[in-house]
C-alpha cells in the first residue's frame, strides 16, 4: 500500500479542518471515542451540526479562536492507500506554515468558499503550490450548499481560477476541480445528489486514483553521506559503511560512483539494510553502502553516479521564503543546511521581492520580512553539490538557520 502526503490550503473559515474531519467521518476513520468527544463539544457549544474541525484543531488557542494555527498531521487509510494530510493554516501571517506543510507533500487541496470565489489568498495558495512544484492540485470549491449547489457559480469560480493558472511558471501541474460541501458531505467521499450536473469524481475518489510514481518528482540519484558506520568490533573489524538516504533514481551494486567533494572514483561494493544485502537501493530508502576502495568520506559528502554530476559551486541564487521576524538583509550571514550538509553563507544580493498574489515584483527591495518571498543570491564558505529545484526537489532545496537563535528562518529553492 502506498502513502500519499497531502497539504491543504485555504483561508480562515474556508473549512479546511471541517473538510478533513468530514473525510475522516465518511471513511469511518474516526474512532467512537473521538466521535463522542466531537458530539459532546459541538453540543456544549450549541451547534446544530457536528463541528469536525474539533478533530484536527489540537491546541487550546485553536479551539478558542476556531482557527488553525499550526500544521497538524492527520492519518487515515482506505483499502487502496494510506494518507497523511498536513492541515496547514490559511492566515496570511502563517504563510511559513503553508510552505512547511507543502514541502513534504505530493498533492495539495486548495479550498475556495463558493460564496467568496477566488480571492487574494487563493492566489497566494496557488503561488506556493506552484513554487513548491506540487504536481497534483485539487481545487475544492466548498460550501456549495450555501450557493444552492449552483452550477453557474461553480463554473464562474472555475473560470476565475483558470485565469490564475495562466500566471504560473510550473505548467506540469495537474489541476482538478470538485464542488463540495464539507459540512454536509457532498462530493467529499460520497457522490452528491445535489450536484447532478457534476460528472467528475468525488474528492476522495480522485485521490484514490492518483498514481504515486507519477506525482513524485524523482530526479537523478544523489547519496548524501549522513553517518559513517565503523563498528570496530572483532566481527566487523574493517567494516566502513556510509549510511544515508538515496535521493532520486536508484543505486546498484557495481555502479561506478564519484565521491564529492574529493571527486574520487570507486564502485559500490555492497548495499545493506540492517544485516541484509540488496542489489539495488531505490529512491528514499535508508541504506548503508560500502565501496570497493578506501575513500575518505564524511558526513555532508555525497556519492553520485560517475556520469551525472550535480553543480559544484560556492554560490547560488534561490527563491527564498522568509520565516523569521528578524529581516533578511544583504550582508547577513546564515547557516545553509542543504540536505545533511551545513555551510556558512553570506547574503550577496536581494534581487527582487515577489508578491505571492501574482501582483508583480519589487526590484528595489533590500531586505525580507516574515512571509516575504524573494530571489536572493548567496556566497558560501565552501562549495555544495546542488541541482536546480525544478530538476531535483531534494537536492535543489535548503533551509537557512540563524547563527544566533539557531532557528530555521527560511526555506530556499535553488533556481
Amino acid at each position, binding site marked *: 500500500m502506498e502513502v500519499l502526503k497531502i497539504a491543504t490550503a485555504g483561508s480562515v473559515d474556508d473549512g479546511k479542518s471541517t473538510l478533513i474531519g468530514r473525510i475522516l467521518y465518511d471513511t469511518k476513520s474516526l474512532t467512537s471515542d*473521538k466521535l463522542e468527544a466531537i458530539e459532546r463539544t459541538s453540543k456544549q457549544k450549541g451547534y446544530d451540526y457536528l463541528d469536525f474541525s474539533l478533530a484536527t484543531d489540537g491546541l487550546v488557542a485553536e479551539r478558542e479562536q476556531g482557527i488553525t494555527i499550526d500544521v497538524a*498531521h492527520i492519518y487515515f487509510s482506505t483499502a487502496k492507500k494510506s494518507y*497523511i494530510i498536513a492541515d496547514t493554516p490559511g492566515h496570511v501571517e502563517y504563510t511559513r506554515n503553508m510552505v512547511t506543510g507543502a514541502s513534504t507533500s505530493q498533492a495539495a487541496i486548495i479550498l475556495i468558499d463558493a460564496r467568496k470565489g477566488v480571492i487574494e489568498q487563493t492566489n497566494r495558495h496557488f503561488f506556493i503550490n506552484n513554487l513548491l512544484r506540487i504536481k497534483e492540485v485539487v481545487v475544492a470549491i466548498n460550501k456549495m450548499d450555501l450557493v444552492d449547489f449552483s452550477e453557474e457559480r461553480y463554473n464562474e469560480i472555475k473560470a476565475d481560477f483558470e485565469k490564475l493558472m495562466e500566471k504560473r511558471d510550473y505548467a506540469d501541474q495537474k489541476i482538478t476541480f470538485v464542488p463540495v460541501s464539507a459540512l454536509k458531505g457532498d462530493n467529499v467521499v460520497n457522490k452528491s445528489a445535489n450536484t447532478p450536473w457534476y460528472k467528475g469524481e468525488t474528492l476522495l475518489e480522485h485521490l484514490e486514483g492518483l498514481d504515486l510514481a507519477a506525482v513524485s518528482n524523482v530526479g537523478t540519484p544523489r547519496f548524501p553521506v549522513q553517518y559513517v558506520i565503523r563498528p570496530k568490533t572483532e566481527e566487523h573489524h574493517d567494516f566502513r559503511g556510509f549510511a544515508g538516504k538515496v535521493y532520486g533514481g536508484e543505486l546498484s551494486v557495481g555502479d561506478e560512483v564519484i565521491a564529492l567533494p574529493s571527486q574520487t572514483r570507486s564502485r559500490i561494493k555492497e548495499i545493506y539494510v540492517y544485516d541484509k*544485502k540488496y*542489489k539495488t537501493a531505490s529512491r*528514499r530508502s*535508508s541504506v548503508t553502502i560500502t565501496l570497493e576502495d578506501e575513500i575518505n568520506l564524511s*558526513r555532508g559528502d555525497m556519492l553520485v553516479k560517475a556520469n551525472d554530476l550535480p553543480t559544484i559551486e560556492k554560490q547560488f541564487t534561490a527563491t527564498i521564503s522568509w520565516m523569521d521576524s528578524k529581516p533578511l538583509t544583504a550582508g547577513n550571514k546564515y547557516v545553509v543546511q542543504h540536505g545533511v550538509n551545513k555551510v556558512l553563507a553570506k547574503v550577496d544580493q536581494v534581487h527582487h521581492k515577489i508578491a505571492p498574489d501574482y501582483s508583480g515584483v519589487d526590484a528595489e527591495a533590500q531586505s525580507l520580512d516574515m512571509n516575504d518571498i524573494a530571489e536572493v543570491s548567496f556566497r558560501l564558505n565552501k562549495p555544495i553539490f546542488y541541482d536546480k529545484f525544478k530538476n531535483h526537489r531534494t537536492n535543489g*532545496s535548503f533551509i537557512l538557520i540563524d547563527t544566533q537563535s539557531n532557528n530555521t528562518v527560511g*526555506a530556499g529553492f535553488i533556481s
Partner: protein
Amino acid sequence: MEVKELEVPTEIIENTAHINALENEAIYILREVAAQFEKPVLLFSGGKDSITLVRLAQKAFWPAKIPFPLMHIDTGHNFPETIEFRDRLVKELGLELIVRNVQDSIDQGKVKEESGRYSSRNSLQTTTLLDAIEEFKFDACIGGARRDEEKARAKERIFSVRDDFGQWDERNQRPELFDMLNGQIELGQNVRVFPISNWTELDVWSYIKDEGIEIPSIYFAHKRKTFLRDGMIWSAEDGIVFRDEDEVVEERMVRFRTVGDMSCTAAVLSDAISIDKVVAEIRDSSISERGARIDDKRSEAAMEKRKQQGYF
C-alpha cells in the same frame, strides 16, 4: 580473521510500501540524531513504541552498536511484566540502561504524590525526566510518541526544541521543511526527537508482526483480576489503583493496548492471544488507543498542558 563469503544479493530495496517508507524515514531520523547531537538518549518505557524504536535504532547503525543509552523514567507503578522484559532486552542487545525513579523525586520533596481516586504518577514523571536530562547533560531525547495518539501530539515537530525548563512552546515551533532536520541548539536547551511521529498504532503493530519483534506479555490477552470504573477495566492485581469497596473484583480476559503507568492505564476486553489477532483487533477497533488512558481524559487539553511543562 575469517572472511565471510559474499553472497550475491538479488533483491531491490524499495520504498513504495507504506510501512517500508515509515521505516526508512525513522532510520534517517535516528541517524540524524546520532550525527547532530553530542549526548542523545532513547527514552525507553518498555512499551511497544519504544521497543519498536530500539529495533529501528539497531537497523540504523548495524553492524555497529546503538550509539546511545536507553533511559527509563520509572514511576514505580510499572507492570512487573514490563520491567522483566526491559531488563532482558537490554541484556540481550548489550545496551546501556539508565533508570531514574519517580519515587526518588517524591522522597526528595520535589514532587507531591497525587491523592484521591484518580491519583496517578504519570505527570510526576516530568520532574524526574528533567532532572535526569540535567544530570547526564542529554541534548537529545528520543521518544516513541506518535502524532496519531493525541491531538496536541499531532502538532509537534519531529525535532521538537525545548527550552532549559524542558518546556514546549507550541506557538513558536521551528518550521520543519522537506527532510531537513535542524538540531542546532544552545547550551541548556534540548531536543525531543520523535522518529515514529508519522506512524499510527496499526503501523506499529504491523511492524512488530512483520519483524517478529518480541513484546511484553501484557499486550496479549490473559486472565486478570479486574474491576470496573467509569466504564473502564482496571487491574485489581497490583494494588496500585485505589479501589472502593463497592467496586467488585472479577476475573476477565483482557489485554493492554498501551503500557503506561498502571495508575492511568486501563485494560480492554480481548481474546487476542497472538500478534496476528492483535493486529486484526486493532484494525477493527472503533476506540482509539488513548481511549484507555485516564490521564488524557482530565480535560480537552490534558496532553498539551503536560507538554508545556516538559512532559515528553
